[in-house]
């Protein structure tokens, strides 16, 4: 509970000067481009920007009539669900055990947070190496048990590669939030359940998991946002959306259509759709944060 600070200082110009740097950056680099994206999404221009014409909602109808766009939605959906479910599940297991081994918790924490510091693109390269069909340790091990690994040709392998790299990169974050959540559960609650004879398994299901549910939902939204937007580096470093378009998530498609295929109208329309998705996800996130504060 933070009390409301009364407003003390009086100055006509000082507050404006103080918010000006942030305000200018926000106007020039956020609102102007976002407005541009909105305007461009109703326009069609040639690749060199020589001619521009208004086309109404044609860019949007063309997108939604295009199976490739729906396919990218499907790829993004599968990818983000896999990343969120696997990443949250593994992190929860590690956090519950790390919380249990009281004296060693900090040692394990120091080791599990490493991937947080690694850039997504570098994480992609590390896993690309392990899954390299010719010299990758993991790929060769899989070959030894009869799996011919090749993420350049096999779309399931490509998807597995980006999911593994993305989960690895995000596991530290999930782990830290679960651990903080577990450590904020009152000790008296755990002790009371012990007196009642509840074992660790029972305690996990009847106390820890229910009390973690706000953290759980928070992480679900954060992980989906992460999979949607922050995995660009991983994908660009490993599959580049391939083979074909099998791992081309929506953000990668905006980049590809805008900068490689130079289809600016379509890219702008995709940007507008993505912005709508982010706004919905953020609203969802805030709904859960309210719950979190109140539990």
């Amino acid at each position, binding site marked *: 509970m933070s009390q409301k600070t009364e407003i003390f200082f009086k100055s006509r110009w000082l507050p404006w000067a103080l918010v000006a740097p942030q305000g200018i950056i926000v106007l020039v680099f956020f609102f102007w481009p976002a407005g541009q994206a909105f305007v461009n999404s109703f326009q069609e221009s040639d690749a060199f920007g020589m001619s521009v014409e208004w086309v109404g909602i044609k860019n949007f109808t063309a997108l939604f009539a295009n199976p490739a766009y729906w396919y990218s939605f499907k790829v993004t959906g599968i990818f983000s669900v896999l990343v969120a479910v696997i990443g949250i599940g593994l992190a929860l297991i590690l956090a519950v055990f790390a919380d*249990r081994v009281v004296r060693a918790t900090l040692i394990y924490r120091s080791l599990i947070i490493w991937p947080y510091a690694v850039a997504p693109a570098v994480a992609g390269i590390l896993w690309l190496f392990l899954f390299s069909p010719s010299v990758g340790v993991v790929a060769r091990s899989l070959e030894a048990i009869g799996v011919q690994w090749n993420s350049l040709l096999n779309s399931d392998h490509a998807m597995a590669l980006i999911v593994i790299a993305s989960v690895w990169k995000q596991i530290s974050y999930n782990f830290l939030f679960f651990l903080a959540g577990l450590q904020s559960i009152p000790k008296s609650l755990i002790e009371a359940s012990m007196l009642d004879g509840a074992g660790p398994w029972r305690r996990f299901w009847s106390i820890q998991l229910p009390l973690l549910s706000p953290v759980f939902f928070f992480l679900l939204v954060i992980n989906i946002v992460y999979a949607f937007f922050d995995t660009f580096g991983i994908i660009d470093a490993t599959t580049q959306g391939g083979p074909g378009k099998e791992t081309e998530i929506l953000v990668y498609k905006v980049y590809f259509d805008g900068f490689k295929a130079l289809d600016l109208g379509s890219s702008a329309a995709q940007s507008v759709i993505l912005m709508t998705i982010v706004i919905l996800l953020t609203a969802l996130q805030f709904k859960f944060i309210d719950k979190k504060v109140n539990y």
Partner: protein
Amino acid sequence: MSIEKRPWVDAIAHTTLIIGVMVIAFPIYMAWVASTHTAQAMAQWPIPLLPGDQMFENYAAALSGSENSGTRGMSVYRMLLVSLISALTIAFGKIIISLISAFALVYFRFPFRGLVFWCIFITLMLPVEVRIVPTFKVIADLGMLNSYAGLTVPLIASATATFLFRQFFKSVPNELAEAAKVDGAGPMRFFFDILIPLSATSIAALFVIQFIYGWNQYLWPLLISTKEDMYPIVVGIRRMIPAGDAQTEWNVIMATAILAMAPPLMVVLLMQKWFVKGLVETEK
């Protein structure tokens, strides 16, 4: 601590955690191993699984960026410098502009204060990734391609940091501001002499998070840096992997990967206490 004695459960816990840590560490360990062998050793199966004796040669080759070093003539030393300058500018820039705008929002009453707040707030919802083409155009129109300004300034606005400081300032007792006024101190004096020292922990926590954010930027510099001498290391290393079937020089690439990971990793590990606190609190 009154955790009950159940040696079996403890054994399972430790085993699971050790396996987990090993799996998590494995990619970094293999990168390290690869960075200590010759290109030939890393080009044919089976590759060595223990460190070799080529460490010095590989790291020297990567840093200098000589033409046949596997870095395709790009100097990793230069890339590290670009990354460091960008990451520090982004981290300090975000902290400074967030501190002063949060100060204005909490300690002053001015017209459109609510509107200003919402304008900053909404930037949370517009990550660079969703509006890359128009933002790139703005940078190009302003002549900021291939410059540190272009690499950093658009990433400096930060709703998260502004919120954190705003929350923190609101928890500072009113008596402090009152006392400052009684003593005849102006707002800026109060800001520098009282608020900033009180915010030291939050500033340290944000520094870790924002330094890593800045260091690990990929898509933005990919667009803004069209010249090799303005590549941060995260973009540069990606360019070292040849397209198609050309032989990848994993030893030098992995030496570069280790160099790319080392600075943010050091920051996280050395400032772990503040980092964990900052991370969990910022996202609340």
